[in-house]
């Protein structure tokens, strides 16, 4: 076996414990499996790793569990802590995670249908917003009840049910958006899209730009 092969084999051997535990990424898993299929000695060593894995689990499982007094002791300490005032602004990932976690799988399935409808409605709503711009006495967009007021410009946003947490978080960070309230029924958030009160044309432009993002299912200006 040449040096390059030795190095590769040594690298693969180092990964065997993680392969046995199932914690390697896809690429390394494939590397290890390919090497195990070709190298009988490596496969023998892998069996040793699997023995270690089994006995380590066995050993830990015989350690028992803490007594119920542990939980009682914890909550006694928590009760002794100063009262905590709930804060509206959790970190962004947690808020978005909460948003996704609030749906059951069935709700998510229905959300996909609702999202399709929302896309159809969206065109009408945007047209309505533009119409309103030309005619002050005309159509006005509906908005969910809001709980936070303050300086700035706001929009109601609902995300695509298929959008993942990372994509939504990136969208919010890239566009410097912050969640003012929500989600309300239907998963709509009221977002602050600018720290100051934008003029109507600027606001329309900002909303149109946000609407281009793939994670947005619905967006409308609100107070």
């Amino acid at each position, binding site marked *: 076996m040449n040096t390059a092969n030795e190095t590769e084999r040594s690298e693969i051997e180092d990964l065997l414990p993680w392969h046995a535990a199932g914690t390697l990424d896809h690429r390394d898993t494939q590397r290890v499996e390919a090497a195990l299929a070709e190298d009988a000695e490596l496969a023998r060593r892998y069996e040793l790793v699997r023995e*270690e894995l089994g006995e380590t689990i066995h050993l830990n499982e015989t350690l028992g569990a803490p007594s119920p007094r542990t939980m009682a002791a914890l909550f006694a300490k928590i009760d002794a802590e100063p009262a905590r005032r709930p804060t509206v602004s959790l970190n962004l990932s947690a808020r978005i995670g909460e948003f996704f976690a609030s749906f059951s799988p069935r709700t998510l399935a229905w959300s996909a249908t609702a999202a399709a409808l929302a896309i159809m409605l969206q065109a009408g709503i945007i047209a309505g917003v533009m119409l309103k711009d030309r005619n002050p006495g005309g159509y006005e967009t509906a908005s969910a009840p809001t709980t936070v007021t303050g300086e700035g410009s706001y929009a109601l946003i609902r995300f695509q049910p298929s959008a993942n947490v990372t994509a939504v978080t990136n969208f919010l960070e890239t566009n410097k958006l912050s969640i003012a309230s929500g989600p309300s029924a239907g998963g709509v958030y009221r977002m602050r899209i600018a720290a100051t009160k934008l003029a109507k044309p600027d606001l329309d432009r900002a909303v149109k730009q946000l609407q281009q993002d793939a994670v947005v299912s619905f967006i409308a200006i609100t107070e």
Partner: protein
Amino acid sequence: MQTTSDEVLIGRIANGDRLAMQVLFARHHVGVYRFVLRLVRNEATAEDLISDVFLDVWRQAGKFEGRSAVSTWLLSIARFKALSVLRRRPEEELDEEAAGAIEDHSDDPEIALAKKDKGAAMRECLNELSNEHREVIDLVYYHEKSVEEVAAIVGIPEATVKTRMFYARKKLSELLKERGIDRGWP
């Protein structure tokens, strides 16, 4: 059935939600306890430590940034607290416990029986490893932590994690060999 993610629970805990704290505790306290117990080797100390670990979670939840899994964060806190306790413990106590953990296996009938049972022998050897070796083996095999996560918990580079795991396994083989079990490796 859908379960609430650990990250969401942490968000709720940051807002003072005791129920979320109970759920997180129920989900992780056994694993954290076993990790700590293997380090401090004293059940009462391990129990005290886990209530301290979860109290830290209650206090610090608002600062959790989600850069690692919640279980990784918990084990990091647990490890730090366990090592602090070990540092404070008198040396005599440590010596007594170490002596208790390392059995004399000359002419002992139980050990003779264990020789016949490779699994039991290996579990004895796992107990005889140093804390440094034991924790890396437990984190990888029992707590199912990746190289990156072990590095985060122990506070060492990823390459060192692999090296440490190799030497922990090598030591395990040597201990088994002392008991007459030659695995033909390393």
